[in-house]
């Protein structure tokens, strides 16, 4: 009897919980925090610091969105995802935005029904090997054992690269960057392959980074950026334009330090529009006028975010390269704010 009562209750609850799906923006606002999917522990991109506060390049982006939408960069719940769980987490609504060095590919955009909000990091797949192995080119890797994160585009690129070059390899699939790092350090694989930025981050955490080399071949294009579910255009716009605002801020010379001062008004109309002094761009997004100002104040403009998390002052020491502004020979280009 108890069992049947339970079943009846279950049925009733199931019927009642069939609620209409609201827009992501309203959902985030009513929840009061942004659920942001990140990788679990990649130094420089997303990892909790000693105090348990998440830090990194991908994290900074989540904070900018939270600041724009909710007014507080700390109102973010970080959900660690693996290469295999990230898309399911996004599709099921567990997270509102995925900021996890995820490559923009055709099938993910179309078949997986994701919307890429833009590229905030241009990367490419490379190989990390121990110096003592004496390998100077990826073409010498025939027969090598390769650690690879399971379920990534890296895995497919690797298979294709070795097939095209008529080489064989022994894949050791790993679940996370940390596990790959452990296996590589234990010597269970000769090579660890991943995006260049990821490997730079991995190498920086080794006791003696100079014993390891990144091979010169870049075997793929990896445009990385934040992702949202397909079908919610307003939310996709918010994420895209928050990202663009960070690019534009660097281009226009708006920094974390001077954003408040510039928000009071400047003689550059585009800065005025961006920071909410002129026009009503914020309203068009469904936000208030100061959305971009808060997003920039959260962690600085794109250049500042890059410098604090990945740049020369950090152990990762990545060069801007392709990730410099278009005005400085890179690919970072914000659509006009007008």
């Amino acid at each position, binding site marked *: 009897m108890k069992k049947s009562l339970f*079943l009846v209750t279950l049925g009733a609850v199931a019927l009642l919980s069939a609620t209409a799906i609201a827009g992501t923006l309203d959902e985030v606002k009513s929840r009061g925090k942004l659920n942001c999917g990140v990788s679990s522990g990649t130094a420089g991109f997303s990892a909790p610091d000693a105090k348990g506060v998440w830090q990194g390049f991908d994290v900074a982006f989540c904070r900018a969105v939270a600041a724009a939408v909710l007014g507080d960069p700390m109102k973010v719940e970080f959900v660690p995802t693996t290469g295999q769980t990230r898309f399911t987490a996004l599709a099921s609504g567990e997270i509102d935005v995925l900021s996890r060095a995820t490559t923009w590919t055709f099938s993910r955009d179309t078949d997986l029904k994701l919307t890429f909000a833009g590229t905030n990091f241009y990367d490419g797949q490379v190989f990390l090997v121990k110096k003592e192995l004496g390998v100077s080119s990826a073409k010498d890797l025939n027969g*090598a054992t390769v650690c690879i994160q399971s379920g990534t585009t890296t895995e497919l690129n690797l298979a294709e690269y070795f097939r095209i070059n008529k080489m064989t390899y022994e894949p050791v699939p790993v*679940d996370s960057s940390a596990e790959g790092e452990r296996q590589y350090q234990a010597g269970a694989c*000769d090579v660890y392959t991943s995006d260049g930025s990821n490997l730079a981050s991995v190498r920086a955490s080794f006791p003696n980074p100079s014993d390891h080399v990144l091979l010169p071949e870049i075997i793929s294009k990896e445009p990385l950026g934040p992702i949202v579910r397909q079908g919610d255009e307003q939310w996709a716009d918010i994420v895209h334009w928050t990202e663009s605002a960070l690019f534009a801020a660097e281009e226009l010379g708006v920094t974390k330090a001077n954003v408040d001062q510039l928000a009071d008004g400047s003689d550059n109309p585009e800065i005025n529009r961006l920071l909410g002094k002129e026009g009503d761009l914020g309203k068009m997004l469904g936000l208030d006028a100061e959305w971009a100002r808060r997003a920039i104040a959260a962690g600085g403009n794109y250049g500042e975010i890059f410098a604090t998390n990945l740049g020369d002052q950090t152990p990762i020491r990545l060069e801007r390269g392709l990730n410099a502004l278009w005005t400085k020979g890179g690919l970072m280009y914000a659509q006009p704010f007008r």
Partner: protein
Amino acid sequence: MANAITFPTLEPHQAFRLSMLLNDGRYRSYTIQIFVLMCLMLGIAWLVDNTIRNLALLGKDFSFSFLWSTAGYDINQRLIEYDTQMTHGRAALVGLLNTVVLAVLSCALATIIGVVAGVLRLSGNPIVARLTVVYVEVFRNIPLLLWILVFGAIMSEAVPAPNAFKGENATAGMILGAVAITNRGVFIPEPLFTRDLGTLNLGIVEPSLNAIAVLVVVIACVLISRVLVRHANRVQSQTGVRPVIWWKTMTVLAAPPLLLLWALGFHLGYPELRGFNFQGGFQLRNALIAMWLGLGIYTGAFIAENVRAGILAISKGQTEAAHALGLRPGKTMRLVILPQALRVIVPPLISQYLNITKNTSLGLAVGYMDLRSTLGGITINQTGRELEGMLLLMLIYLSLSLIISGSMNAYNARVGLKER
């Protein structure tokens, strides 16, 4: 119905009224059951409807066509032909075979460990008995995933890398020049044939005809030797004298297979260090060994308890009677106690075999490419077909479990107590 409540009366032919569905004990249970069934069906209908709506909302359709598209990813352990240009369906099959191999190996190991430990725990020698208690309690009470990770870490960190075998002052050597234990796996010699009979094309799989030939001959020899033994038994029971047949059975068992192996040009291929790694030979990957040891030793502790329970269920009089007949303790256990204990041991053993089979899905923790890692991991991730993939995965695990429990139940019926 605005009737007043009716009370059951003693009249046998009372006319049926609708209110009796609730008030009459004869009908009430049916009413409740039908109501609950309808609620359950409503619940299921809601779930299905909700799924379809949500899929439509996400713009996804429901289709298994992804199984026929190119997989593109590599699987290191493959029992059948597979390369990255084959389909996701093929990759799933490779993963399924890996799951089955691991399950069979682990069940065998767990059974051996379990029976030995179960018997030893009842040993009269206190040291042996206590050590077994320690083994059982330590392994039973720590989660399986941790054991798998421990064995995985041992296999990747505590054994030498292949380049330790290299050069003049190598720090590691091969065992008997034939077996190399490295952090990439254990390399053992592999059987090779100089004459190849080719392969048998069965569509999906192409087993080697050499292997089939050897298998057929060995089975035939075993069957013939059993005929010989049965004949000897018959002669013994009729005449009281057992004919000497050991040389006959030995010849039957050994000669034909050896002749066949010689005819096919059988030899061993030894692993040797070439380039980055050992080449040739048969590679038992670390992931397989870690999973095998983890599953086998962990579940062995549970089986040990089943075996102990089974032995304790047999009355002590059986042992005493066997001893009174002059049977030694070993023979008493093997011939008297264990056969009777089996009917207590086998039913929980079936559950343990099912546990092992399902627990193989922890393989990804050490990078073992089983069904969960191929179909349930990479394929789902690359194609975005979570629902279809998971349904398929559940269906396959369900079928596997039903097959195991079906065949084990058949075995149980055979060893069970036969009352005549």
